[in-house]
């Protein structure tokens, strides 16, 4: 039995002008500790799929099973990281990080210590009483990572969490996130536009086609790349080869879209 199973997910959006099909029978499954990236052009339904897995929107058809059980929103076993950190500017870093425990009313000293420990681990010692505006973008995103991890989610959903950062910070953060996920054996889904990021971080890449969003092609990463940290991955001899394959796949989607007259 797989850890996460996404079965035949289809989704329709309704508005005044009619309906749009965002997803068309998307299915895939993941093992525990696996890292999967969703790659594809804008409008291919990646973020919609992520929102469905997170339970933030209800799919029109299909189901999502976590360890064989359907997901309920009351489990909150899902951690979410967004494009921007969305740290609350009026709360200190510690209060921000402990938002999850506070919401579920389980905040206590033990968990505060755990938070400080995690902040240390991501390289943010001595910031717990500071406010977000005094931190750089990379530091804030690391604090947001801790805010997600403190709830011990079963799955992490990363919605382009590095896209708003400068290149240098982005590469460093990719390494950090990869390391943390490995250490805590977390299962993760990453949505990204960046082919390099997908290759260097994932065990598997799902390339999606648009209108409606569906799976175009799936790439399993070579074993040599999987265990390497993202920065070293980009310098690995096999990296370019995988990059070309994924690039080719993305190109097919684009030319098909043009050929279809859209």
């Amino acid at each position, binding site marked *: 039995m797989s850890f996460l199973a996404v079965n035949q997910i289809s989704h329709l959006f309704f508005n005044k002008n009619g309906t749009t099909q965002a997803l068309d029978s998307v299915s895939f499954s993941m093992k525990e500790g696996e890292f999967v990236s969703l790659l594809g052009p804008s409008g291919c339904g990646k973020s919609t799929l992520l929102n469905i897995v997170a339970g933030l929107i209800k799919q029109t058809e299909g189901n999502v099973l976590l360890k064989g059980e359907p997901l309920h929103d009351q489990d909150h076993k899902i951690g979410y990281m967004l494009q921007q950190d969305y740290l609350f500017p009026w709360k200190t870093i510690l209060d921000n990080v402990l938002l999850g425990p506070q*919401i579920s009313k389980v905040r206590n000293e033990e968990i505060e210590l755990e938070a400080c420990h995690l902040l240390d681990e991501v390289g943010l010692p001595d910031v717990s009483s500071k406010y977000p505006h005094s931190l750089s973008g990379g530091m804030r995103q690391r604090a947001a990572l801790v805010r997600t991890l403190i709830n011990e989610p079963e799955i992490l959903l990363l919605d382009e969490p590095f896209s708003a950062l400068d290149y240098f910070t982005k590469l460093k953060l990719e390494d950090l996130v990869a390391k943390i996920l490995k250490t805590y054996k977390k299962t993760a889904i990453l949505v990204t536009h960046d082919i390099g990021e997908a290759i260097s971080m994932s065990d598997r890449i799902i390339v999606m086609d648009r209108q409606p969003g569906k799976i175009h092609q799936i790439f399993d990463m070579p074993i040599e790349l999987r265990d390497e940290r993202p920065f070293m991955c980009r310098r690995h001899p096999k990296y370019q080869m995988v990059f070309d394959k994924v690039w080719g796949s993305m190109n097919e989607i684009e030319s098909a879209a043009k050929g279809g007259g859209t």
Partner: protein
Amino acid sequence: MKQNRDVLWDEYQTQLKKEKKLVFGWQIAIFAAFFILWETASRMYWIDPLLFSSPSSIFELLRHRLMNGSMFVHIKVTLFETVLGFVIGTMAGILIASLLWGSKRLSRILDPYLVILNAMPKVALGPIIIVAFGPGYFSIIAMGAMVSVIITALVVYSAFREADPNYERVLKSFGATRWQVFKEAVFPSTLPAIISTFKVNVGLAWVGVIVGEFLVSRQGLGYLIIYGFQVFDFTLVMSSLILIAIFAAIMFKLVERLEKWLIRHSA
């Protein structure tokens, strides 16, 4: 270089001080010129002193009435009504906005009514309020609150709606209830917008209270204006106006302080 820097810095400072002095000087000059011109015009009968009074007779009246204490009760009553009208109007407005945010359907249903109530000149409801609440403080406080409540509700509600939905998304991923989303994200993120309605509402509360006192009252600065008008004592009218100007300015400044304090302690 170091010395040069200090010299330039001193020059800059003197420049700033000079500008400040100049502005203050002009402010004093305008103030003095206005009252001197008024006094002279009144004494030379360029204007009718019976209608427009004069600074000296206003000063004399204020001195006399403040000395024997007969002015304080009016000041007290009006300030009490205005502060209460302001607080009630603002609070009720925020409460209504919160309810509207709590139920999208309610806000859709109430939308046309709010638009009409907002467009309506609230002081026109004065007589009805007086009939409903009786001729006393209640009616006047209600007038003070009425003037600001709907506009506060609309402004605060639209601020609530513009709160970044991604904060809500973060909270929901932690399983937050709608009340928690409101308490943790929507309300604090719109606090600056809420506070900025305070300044507007202070002015509005004065309008409501003074009109209320015009309509029905036996005490208060608005009452003195109407009373003075009826017995043709324009010195009394002018004195009340000057007191209103002073106290309205003080209240505005206090709210401004409160605003700064709140923003500092919430950000």
